[in-house]
């Protein structure tokens, strides 16, 4: 049990800190500090450009995705060095939000299943932010039940022809590539007939339509495929093995999004310290302290749980289903914290404009974004199922569709 840096870790930290001090886009530091989940706006610059520029700069000095192998655009850093880098990058890490899906999910899937020359070709520009990737999994008929997807892939010579629709695809509107799961055999039970590919989002027949979200923004999209051709060489894993390939992606997803989740707790702490109630600062109030303390220990518990996962990882263990805990806890907490922050603001809690609302509207933005955190990347219920079944060993849900050929499964309630 040791929290201190080893000499090598200390040297790594020192190097990272010095490089960040010399190179980070400091002109955006204050804005990034104030930005909350659900709203990063930079008055002085276009977020996409600023984020890409920072990522490119990191890549040139070898700091992009530090834990990836050197050949694929990383620097072969250890899992612990990766954490040190994140700690040192601090608020500038928020600029990486656009790349999370590529770096956290698509990249690792490519690493596990693409051919060596493909990895060397596609991964470095993915690491450097030059190319943005998206994850084309969810469909109108297959969200939690991903294996219920209907997008078809049919073999045609050396190519596959894709027809169908994806939905909720984050960043598809600015993505260069995507990983795509399709149905290649509807005559077998649903998990057995799936196949994974990667594709160029500019391929003919791909159409992206942004969706306006509940919080007013547009981060995700519908994606339509009409006779899109994908060379067989861009298949990831065997034909019919797409389900297993997707599990690799989802496991990495949980690690990537679970490890560094925003909880809203530092923001609430700061707000309660500055907010004056009738009898003094909110943080002196018994009830406020009690709530804050409960959330604070959940947040610290999450942080040290991820440290435990990293310790296991650095001993060569694979990220397991227990990592589902991160998003499950953080999602609910974010929503509860935001609701409470508005409550503390009383009637003015209703205001959301940056100039009129408390804390520049940070908690209002958090409130309106937080429902998505509890759904994206697996709903609370699915994550609880995973913990119950795969960690605690409880029986799986009763599945009426398990052994039924896909094309005989009912498609709609009543």
């Amino acid at each position: 049990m040791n929290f201190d840096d080893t000499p090598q870790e200390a040297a790594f930290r020192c190097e990272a800190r010095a490089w960040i001090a010399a190179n980070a886009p400091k002109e955006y530091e204050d804005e990034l500090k104030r930005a909350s989940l659900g709203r990063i706006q930079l008055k002085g610059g276009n977020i996409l450009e600023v984020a890409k520029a920072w990522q490119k700069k990191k890549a040139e000095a070898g700091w992009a995705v530090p834990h990836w192998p050197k050949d694929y655009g990383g620097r072969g850093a250890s899992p612990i060095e990766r954490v040190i880098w994140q700690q040192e990058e601090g608020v500038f890490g928020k600029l990486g939000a656009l790349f999370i899906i590529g770096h956290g999910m698509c990249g690792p899937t490519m690493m596990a299943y693409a051919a060596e020359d493909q990895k060397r070709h596609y991964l470095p520009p993915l690491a450097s932010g030059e190319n943005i990737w998206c994850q084309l999994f969810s469909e109108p008929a297959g969200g939690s039940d991903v294996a219920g997807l209907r997008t078809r892939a049919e073999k045609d010579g050396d190519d596959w022809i894709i027809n169908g629709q994806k939905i909720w695809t984050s960043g598809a509107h600015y993505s260069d590539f995507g990983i795509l799961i399709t149905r290649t055999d509807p005559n077998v039970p649903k998990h057995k007939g799936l196949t994974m590919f990667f594709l160029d989002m500019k391929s003919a027949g791909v159409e992206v339509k942004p969706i306006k979200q509940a919080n007013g923004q547009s981060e995700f999209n519908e994606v339509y495929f009409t006779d899109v051709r994908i060379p067989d060489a861009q298949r990831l894993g065997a034909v019919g093995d797409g389900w297993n390939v997707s599990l690799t992606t989802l496991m990495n997803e949980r690690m990537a999004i679970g490890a560094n989740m925003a909880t809203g707790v530092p923001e609430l702490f700061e707000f309660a310290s500055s907010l004056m109630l009738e009898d003094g600062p909110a943080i002196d109030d018994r009830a406020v302290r009690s709530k804050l303390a409960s959330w604070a220990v959940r947040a610290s518990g999450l942080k040290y749980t991820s440290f435990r996962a990293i310790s296991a990882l650095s001993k060569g263990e694979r990220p397991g289903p227990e990592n589902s805990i991160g998003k499950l806890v953080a999602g609910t907490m974010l929503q509860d914290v935001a609701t409470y922050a508005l409550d503390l603001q009383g009637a003015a809690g209703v205001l959301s404009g940056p100039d009129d609302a408390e804390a520049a509207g940070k908690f209002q933005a958090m409130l309106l974004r937080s429902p998505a955190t509890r759904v994206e990347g697996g709903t609370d219920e699915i994550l609880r199922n995973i913990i119950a079944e795969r960690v605690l060993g409880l029986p799986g849900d009763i599945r009426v569709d398990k052994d039924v050929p896909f094309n005989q499964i009912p498609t709609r309630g009543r």
Partner: protein
Amino acid sequence: MNFDFSDDQKQLRDEARRFLSEKCPPKAVRAVIDGKATYDRELWKGLADMGFLGVAIPEAFGGSGAGHLELCVIAEEMGRALAPVPFSSTVYLAAEALMLAGTEAQKQKWLPAIAAGTAVGTLALFEGTGNPSPASIKLTATNGVLNGVKKPVPDGAVADFAIVAARNGSTGRETDISLFLVDLTCDGVETRALANIDPSRGQAEITFTNVKAESLGPASEGWSILTRVLDRAAVLIGFEQVGGADRALEMGRDYALDRIAFGRQIGSFQAVKHMLADMYVSATLARSNCYYGAWALSTNASELPEAAASARISATQAFQHCAKNNIQVHGGMGFTWEFDCHLYYRRANALAVGLGSLSYWEDALIDRMRQRNAA
């Protein structure tokens, strides 16, 4: 950074778990709960022989000097097994206070006896309803003579000596509080066992009438020593709570796999699965906070006060959460005397208030976080 116990420490855990599953089955806990003994003396002796009572006591004072991480490992197993022995009062409170503030002679007298299992110690702090605070201490010390009543005192009826918090000034500041070491067999001490929600560990009232006592640590530093003792005990009891929470979760899981209703294992119903998943979540968060506390305790880091409060709060919540839902998973069976669920429920709720309740630690945590943020 390495955020896990070492292989040696894990081996110690396995050894402790094996020992306790043999020497401390639920039957042994029940013997004490049912009032057949005040505590399990044979188990106590066995713990001494295994070297568990003295793991964190230096060799010079009769311990093995292994360290506090090792003590955390043992504490978790004590919590799992609900060991009905005066472990926390003796090892976490009395021994820690002695190690922090005792003179050479005081340490020589008591620490080897603790390690050998021949002396039970406790901390006499509380005086009725309320949380630890200098103002709550009314028992007086005048020229080293104590007068007053302490209650509840953990294991007070079976303890050989107590560290007693007393008032020897009237400035209204923390510096009015001093600590004393009292041999409980001496004249003027009267103990009375008190009924409590978890009879597997005793509680008592101790009355001091003109008791001559030796001081422990400098006169004006009693409160600051106490705070440090409580912080250290918070981490250690945190591990007991995590051990208890984990065991309660396991019991619930096993029952959910075993019990059939509507033609299915009840563990296949989502409402039950999700309840168990949430128990896992709270036990895991608590464990992680306790690991951080263990590191801070074992290295005497400046982070200890904040780490201790976090460990304490989350372990308290986790054990309570797991213990109550374990009963729920068991249905009617869970509410029978015969099933062990209530033993965990009792211990969870006794530990939850025994070291100052949640509100005390929540307050402490917020104060400590503020200090850090201000720094």
